[in-house]
């Protein structure tokens, strides 16, 4: 699953620390999300999307090819 967190963060002029505080996670989690190494829970995805005032699917791009065996 890809995401636009880094791009949106730059657009909103937010640091990783500020975004982490907004959604109440550790900064490390934002780093992992931006690198695409971690797929967040629905709640975290919802919270992040809410910060950017967008829908979940506009922030997180679900690619079905990633889940094909």
């Amino acid at each position, binding site marked *: 699953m890809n995401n636009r967190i880094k791009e949106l963060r730059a657009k909103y002029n937010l640091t990783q*620390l500020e975004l*982490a*505080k907004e959604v*109440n*996670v*550790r*900064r*490390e*989690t934002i780093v*992992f999300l931006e690198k695409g*190494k*971690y*797929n*967040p*829970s629905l709640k*975290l995805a919802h919270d992040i999307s809410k910060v950017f005032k967008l829908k979940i699917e506009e922030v997180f791009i679900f690619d079905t090819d990633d889940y094909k065996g």
Partner: protein
Amino acid sequence: MKKTKRILVLTSVLIMAVVWGFIILERRTELFKGLDLFIFILTIVIGVIAFIMAIKKDKEEKEGLPAYDELSTRIKYKSGYYAYLASMYMWLFIFLLKDKFPDTETMLGGGILLSALISVIAKYIVKQKFNE
């Protein structure tokens, strides 16, 4: 990091420092060698790692970040599983090589310290390879 956990880590480090202080004082000029030296270094390494981790968590908490979240919990469970498996093999080897240890206390103490080291290594590896 929660206050109680911080106190626990600091107390453990202090106890370790006092115990080793007494051992060094008792031995005076007698140098550590062989297994003693290995256990001594292992204790110091684990103590330093625990101290650095405690300071790091404390700093994050002061910045207003939570000590744990969904990713850290996931990493903890995953690394815990690997550390458990690795520790089982380690204890197996320790019991196979039990004749090589001078006494039971050294064998058990060394095993416990190695278990702690394994858990630190497992957490590091899981973090580096995490992709899910």
